[in-house]
């Protein structure tokens, strides 16, 4: 890989956050493109080539459910959080908050 160490670490940091963001956003139903727009509107830009395969992966893991439905005279695949997905999202959010609090405490003690 030719990316800088910062770029590698940034990508690593983002990877986990993206899953959390996608799961959280899919508490309401979306298809791929509107989900990407919704995430971007909230400040989280994500490439199509990352997001669309990620949706498939999360569905295979049972965290999302999807169905093909016609909207605006076009068939689209709509995704939403599954029952298991809701449980996992709750657990991940708890983990996220706990980590955030820990990190805040650490950062208060360390000058960056």
């Amino acid at each position, binding site marked *: *890989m*030719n*990316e800088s160490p910062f770029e590698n670490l940034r990508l690593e940091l983002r990877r986990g956050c993206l899953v959390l963001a996608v799961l959280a956003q899919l508490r309401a139903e979306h*298809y*791929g*493109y*509107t989900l*990407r*727009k919704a995430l971007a509107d909230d400040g989280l830009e994500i*490439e*199509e*080539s*990352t997001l*669309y*395969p990620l949706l*498939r*992966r999360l569905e*295979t893991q049972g965290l999302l459910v999807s*169905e*093909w*439905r*016609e909207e605006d005279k*076009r*068939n*689209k*695949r709509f995704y939403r959080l599954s029952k298991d997905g809701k449980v996992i999202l709750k657990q991940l959010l708890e983990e996220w908050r706990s980590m955030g609090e820990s990190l805040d405490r650490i950062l208060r003690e360390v000058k960056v």
Partner: protein
Amino acid sequence: MNLLNRYLQAVARLLPKARRDDIVAELRANILSQMEDREEVFKRPLTEDEQAEILRHHGNPTIIAGRYREDNLGLAFGRQLIGPELFPFYKMSLTVNLVITVVILAGLIPAIAQMTGGAIVLSRALIPLVTQFVIVTLIFIALERNKAHVLDKWDPRKLPVVKANPDDGPTASNIFTFIITALGTLWVALTPHWPYLLLGPGALYLPQLELKFWPQWPAFYWTILVLLCTQLVVQFFGVFRWLPSRKARIADAILRTAGIAVAVLLLLKGPNYVTSKYPEVAYWANLNFEVCIGGWLAIALWRVGWIAFSLFRERHQMLPARQY
């Protein structure tokens, strides 16, 4: 939308067959929505350059297809040498290379053995295999390391043109199936009058053998012939797309199911389909008959099962027709 079709075709080629249509349909819907959004902003249709820019931003077809693969395998030696996006193509290239090398070697081994006396044939044969493995692996490691530079330099306008859609007109496969069915039907229709078509020169001995079918055979024979003729008509309509692909497949499945029922009845009747004044001849004729029915039954069951599965899958997923 010519560029979009070319892009989707390029992605589709690299996707696993089982999920190909589904993924491509989803990509199409997403990209079209994005293009429409852009058109609303510009208040005009997108130019080809603008479409190309959206597709280029969407990603290289090789990378996109690699990301949809779920096996997520890679090649690592301490650190990752070939990532999951390129690994399927690495595996495919390596397999093709090694198979070709093995085939060539298999042809050359006798010559090598003669030249070397046979003792070091194995080591000689291994050298090209190891060389192929190393070369292909090094190429892919280099590609992985320069992925961003190599794979980012692509232009949607240079993608191959879209192949003719099978739903647009006759395809080689449909025409071939129709010709085979026509020949088969003709053979079934003519054989009773010209047994030569079944037995070849042996047909000359038929009068002496005194072969006789059991009395209900004509009813079965005519049912088979009618089913074959109906299938021929359905396939003819299918070739010229006068019957939609889905309906043609349903009709095909129904006719084959009727054929399966006839075949099962025939097997239940067995094994005394024919009698002869020579018991051995009757035995072999009956055995042949039974094997042929059994073989046809297995193929028909597989075919009907496959059609049912594909129809169920399409219905379940509400997939739009194949469009790339």
